[in-house]
């Protein structure tokens, strides 16, 4: 079988889905669209950050108050870092040397040196920091402060806030365009997406989506944004050229984390309510068969390694 060969070669990308209710991560082979491994992690995993340069990924365990480090070649946890707070959002710097951890209750972000996890810096941000994005050059960290209704722009060298950009009500997920010129803040109570111009740090547009949107992801060339609507049980497809919703695709119950598979041109979205990952063909906007995961799948963050090692 071709796909068996792919697994041995390790050339095919995987999706890493955090299962809140099973304290595990489901590893999905995107060529076969099936779970090939299940990795036990800490208590109530939510966030995920996949390394670009190393066979490694990071999982936040919010109730376990830790971050699990997983070796993706062996599909096992190699270390667990204690966090003195409640880690939710995770994002890596482009060089993978810094892991940013959003602490949901303590209103701060930790910058952890991935080569020396006890070495940490801290910045206090807004209330209930959630989704994060790092600029392509690594110089800026963007943090969605859910209960402050804004996005903090942080200089990563000094770890100081440069400005805070007011967006819609309760921004949770955050994504960026492939060229880094636009940020997308997903406003859970605003039922909208705020488009931020990263040159001016201004909101350039606000696009209405469906009920309780949660997370967003761009396709590879930046022509589409996909937004998960947790209470709408759907994914909104946005044409970035005219900033219009061009399709709303029903998916399994309560979709949360969403990522784009660059090789297969597919969208994967963790469906918390049905313990599945819903799959959409990006070329046709048609549903493909869902994949059963562990319980209460969340996958908050960019969870696909599009450049596998």
């Amino acid at each position, binding site marked *: 079988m071709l796909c068996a060969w792919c697994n041995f070669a390790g050339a095919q990308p995987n999706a890493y889905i955090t299962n*809140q*209710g099973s304290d595990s991560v489901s590893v999905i082979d995107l060529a076969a669209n099936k779970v090939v491994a299940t990795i036990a992690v800490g208590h*109530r995993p*939510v966030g995920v950050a996949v390394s670009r340069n190393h066979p490694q990924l990071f999982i936040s365990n*919010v*109730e376990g108050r830790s971050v699990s480090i997983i070796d993706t070649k062996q599909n096992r946890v190699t270390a667990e870092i204690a966090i003195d*707070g*409640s880690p*939710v959002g995770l994002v890596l710097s482009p060089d993978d040397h810094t892991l940013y951890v959003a602490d*949901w*209750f*303590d209103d701060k972000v930790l910058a952890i040196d991935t080569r020396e996890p006890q070495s940490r810096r801290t910045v206090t941000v807004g*209330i*209930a920091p959630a989704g994060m994005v790092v600029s392509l050059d690594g110089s800026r960290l963007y943090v969605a402060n*859910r*209960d402050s209704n804004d996005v903090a722009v942080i200089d990563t060298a000094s770890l100081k806030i440069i400005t805070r950009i007011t967006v819609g*009500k309760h921004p949770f997920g955050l994504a960026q365009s492939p060229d880094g010129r636009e940020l997308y803040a997903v406003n859970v109570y605003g039922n909208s997406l705020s488009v931020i111009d990263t040159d001016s740090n201004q909101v350039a547009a606000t696009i209405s989506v469906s*009920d*309780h949107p949660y997370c967003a992801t761009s396709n590879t060339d930046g022509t589409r944004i996909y937004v998960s609507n*947790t*209470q709408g049980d759907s994914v909104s497809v946005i044409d970035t050229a005219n900033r219009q919703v061009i399709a709303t695709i029903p998916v399994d*119950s*309560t979709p949360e984390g969403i990522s784009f598979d660059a090789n297969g041109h597919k969208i994967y979205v963790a469906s*918390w*309510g049905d313990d599945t990952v819903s799959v959409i063909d990006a070329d046709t906007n048609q549903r493909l068969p869902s994949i059963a995961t562990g319980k*209460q799948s969340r996958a908050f963050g960019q969870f696909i390694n599009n450049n596998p090692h």
Partner: protein
Amino acid sequence: MKNLFAILAALMLPLTAAAHGPSPQKVEKEIVIKADPAKVWAIVKDFGGLHKWLPPVESTKLETKDGNTFRLLTLKGGGTILERLKSSDDADMKLKYEIIEGVLPVGDYNAVITVKPGPGAGESTVVWMARFYRVYRLNPPIPEGQDDESAIKAVTGVFDAGLPGLKALAESK
């Protein structure tokens, strides 16, 4: 009884400042009812008729404003819960609603009731699912009554009382 919208107005500030626990909780229950799906759906979609099948509810007061439909539930023994109808879909027989404010120890509560045909002819299966958070929004220790377990227990209690009540009403002549 205070005017419903005076209560709503008073709630505006706490609502915008609302925060909750970090992990959404889920309660999902289902029951098979020996009654036609259309009959069961007619009961479920009657948003102002919850007291007819949810025993802890003394009365339901239905009000609409600006295209939104609310129900104020007054519980036996005191306490109220204010809920908003989010959608009522006849084709899928699916009703969605949220809690605006009330005595249940939950935050950001959204629920959906779905009526499906089967498993047997002339039978219905009702699935009631809620997603919500605990109330307490700080690091441990979590005060008793504001933790995940308390939230789950309260919602489970509602569902366990409601589904047999719905079955009894739908199966009555």
